[in-house]
């Protein structure tokens, strides 16, 4: 009887097995990498309505973060300041600057500026700034060195895995409370001893249960 298939088809099962592995493994790998916030969100840097420079204000001029984000220590939210905060200085400093036109307009009309939020957690994730600051986690741990940023950029993935990494091992992120807003702080050599001490003092027990964040 004549052969139905040519000889190379003998290799088909092997090719299909390898191809199947490749497709399944590749598919999982593709979504794992390209679907993750690490790939999709890190580096997000929207154009804001006002060319406000954190580098100038927080870096060069050395204004404390909490001058503008003044609820961070007492509320779940590190608020974006109202225009009034800007005008505390800018009624006197460069009131006629072109870069401040939008701020002046907002101040005159009372219509708030439409800042674009860079760090946005999903609504089903509960996050409290004050709890983290009280534990001694610095601003830079999550937001990066904002004092060096011309435009605010998202530098951490802020994925659930990223949150859990720190909740499971927060030691390298706990600071003396007066260093929280210090963008240049680096852990000292005895950081682990320090962390062990403050964890006891401040009663730091980072929760890992679902309902800690998904309430």
């Amino acid at each position, binding site marked *: *009887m004549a052969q*139905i*298939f040519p000889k190379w088809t*003998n290799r088909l*099962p092997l090719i299909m097995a390898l191809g199947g592995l490749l497709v399944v493994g590749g598919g*999982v790998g593709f979504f*794992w990498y390209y*679907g*993750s*916030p*690490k790939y999709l969100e890190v580096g997000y840097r929207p154009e804001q309505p006002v060319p406000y420079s954190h580098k100038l204000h927080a870096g060069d001029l050395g204004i404390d973060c909490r001058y503008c984000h003044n609820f961070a220590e007492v509320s779940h939210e590190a608020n974006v300041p109202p225009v009034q905060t800007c005008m505390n200085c800018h009624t006197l400093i460069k009131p006629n600057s072109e870069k401040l036109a939008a701020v002046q307009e907002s101040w005159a009309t009372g219509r708030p500026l439409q800042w674009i939020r860079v760090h946005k957690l999903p609504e089903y994730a509960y996050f409290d700034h004050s709890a983290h600051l009280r534990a001694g986690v610095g601003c830079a741990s999550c937001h990066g060195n904002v004092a060096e940023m011309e435009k605010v950029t998202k530098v951490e*993935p802020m*994925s*659930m*895995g*990223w949150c*859990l*990494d720190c909740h499971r091992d927060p030691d390298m992120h706990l600071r003396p409370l007066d260093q929280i807003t210090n963008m240049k702080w680096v852990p000292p050599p005895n950081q682990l001893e320090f962390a062990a001490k403050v964890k006891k003092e401040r009663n730091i027990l980072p929760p890992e249960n679902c309902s800690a964040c998904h309430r």
Partner: protein
Amino acid sequence: MKASAETTALQVDDGQLIQGNPTFHTVSESISRIVEVKTTKAWYVLFGFFSSLALMFVVMIGYLFWEGTGIWGLQIPVAWGWAIVNFVFWVGIGHAGTLISAILFLLRQPWRTSINRFAEAMTIFAVICAGTFPGIHVGRVWVAYYMFPLPNQMSMWPNFRSPLLWDVFAVGTYFTVSLLFWYTGLIPDLATLRDRAKSKIRKAVYGAFALGWRGSHRNWQHYELAYLLLAGLATPLVLSVHSVVSFDFAVSNLPGWHTTIFPPYFVAGAIFSGFAMVMTLALIARKVYNVENFITMRHLENMNKIILVTSLMVGYAYSIELFIAWYSGNPFERFAFWNRATGPYAWAYWTMVFCNVVVPQVFWSRRMRRNIPVMFVVSILVNIGMWFERFVIVVSTLANDFLPSSWHYFKPTIFDVGMLIGSFGLFFTLFLLFLRFLPMIAMAEVKAVLPQADPHYYEHHGNGKEASV
């Protein structure tokens, strides 16, 4: 299988597994012909009907994804409704196929050969229907991948302590092993079909699926070993899959569900309902496709005996459940079972008892075991009864939970009913395709149980050849 020396070749003996005194050739002929003749009108009509139901199922699933699980009659506290009932029902149906193909194979029961092929096909299609329901029941289907241990940005594994996850693996394993087992058994028959094929396409398709089978000794040796190993793998699955399904209920702490009898009780029920389904399908198929010589009264009677035995098992489970509820002295447990038998769902409970325990008792009589109309009706009633068993377990327990103020009476919506009917449509669509394109009886295995397969057969029966002693 050794034929008695006294039986002459022409005599139709009820003791013979395969009747009509076929030769190897006529076996191939009568089974292969079924898939080789022109498709009949009746097949098209049936296929059109059932595939429309399957299409309705798909459309309803689409609407479910769009609108959410609220289109079902679900309302707290009844958060598991017909979808879970149907899931357990369909998984249970599958079990007979695996029992026939694996356990009866290992126990060397040669009567399985005529029914194993389509019983296994039934298993696979039933598991497909079963797997659909929890898949669509999760509500947010786009995160259904949470059920699998995939790497993700949440650092999150599935909850390995949840029986719902064990279910995913149990049913997944079950489907994979059943499919492999079925396919391995099909290979020699696919080669037969390939060799008989006239058109190029048939040759290519059957040839591709026959995986180059030549029927050599080496082929057979590998085949037999693979089949034995797969039978060994599938055997524990008969017991484990439905045990795990029962854990969905038994591991929770709800009175009426939290019962240690559940695993064996579910397995017995699964085999019970599965055999009833095999019976329904076999009775129709043997008539329509004229294979009464292969699926003989002996096969049917054996299946009826299994139905009777498993009916007694579930009957025992029903009564022991009630006894333990009373004996436990736990008022909640007592209420749960008293409520099943006398509460708002009493009609369902007594339907279940009537269909599953009372009706199969007719099979104590040999005359009834061999009466085709009777067994057809019984097989249908058993399937209805087993669906109601799952309904009683799932719904009656949930509807009357710990807080009387939230009790309510579960009412199915048109989508509950439509999806149950639709799943039957899917099942029969797949089954009709199977009957049309694949040999419904394992030809190679049937040949092995013919008297001629006995190496000493020709010593006693010349059959045109000289006996050499």
